């Protein structure tokens, strides 16, 4: 997926899965998501879509929608081009990355 865009790599000790983050450079939850990945030592790649050419960005959004039947919102975490979650809800990220729930006081707000 997303073969036509360049992701920025971030090194980490845990690199068993391909973790990619679709983010905005201005978004607070995107920064929080990056901090989460780094806290847990994951190697990952990210791209700030707001810095891409509009036509390229539109292509990424279309590809995401076709693959996951979901509208892209930020941050979006994609694992091995197969699983995904949109938005930063810590419990969902922990589930997707097979981590134990660290803080059960976090309120889960979902549709």
């Amino acid at each position, binding site marked *: 997926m997303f073969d036509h865009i360049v992701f920025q790599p971030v090194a980490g000790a845990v690199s068993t899965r391909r973790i990619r983050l679709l983010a905005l450079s*201005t*978004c607070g*939850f995107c920064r929080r998501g990056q901090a989460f990945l780094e806290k847990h030592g994951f190697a990952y790649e990210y791209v700030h879509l707001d810095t891409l050419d*509009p036509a390229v960005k539109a292509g990424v959004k279309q590809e995401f929608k076709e693959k996951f039947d979901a509208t892209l*919102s*930020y941050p979006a975490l994609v694992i091995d081009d197969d699983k995904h979650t949109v938005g*930063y809800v810590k419990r969902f990220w922990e589930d997707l990355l097979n981590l134990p729930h660290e803080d059960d006081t976090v309120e889960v*707000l*979902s*549709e």
Partner: protein
Amino acid sequence: MTPWRFYLSRLSNPAAARDYVIQVARHRGWVVNPDSDLVDPIVEGLAAQTNRFGKPFCPCRDIDGGDADSDVVCPCAYAAADIAACGQCYCGLFLAPGKDPKTVGSIPERR
């Protein structure tokens, strides 16, 4: 330059953007999220959006900066409903009085 446009242009400064956020919260009866790890990037994002597009568009949404995005100039048209339903705006910038900042996370897109 009209007074309104002059005022908006000042928001390209993060300190002015922060003052704007404080004034909005006071006017609307909301609370600015005290979690600086989350809020500082958002305030910087508001300044960046003003530099890019001339208005403080929501930094947590992917926008093109045209008239079609006028509904997401901060505070966005959905903030009041989101704060009433979830205790927070889409960005987590504005909270309902009494909302625990530790429970702030991504919420469904109402737009």
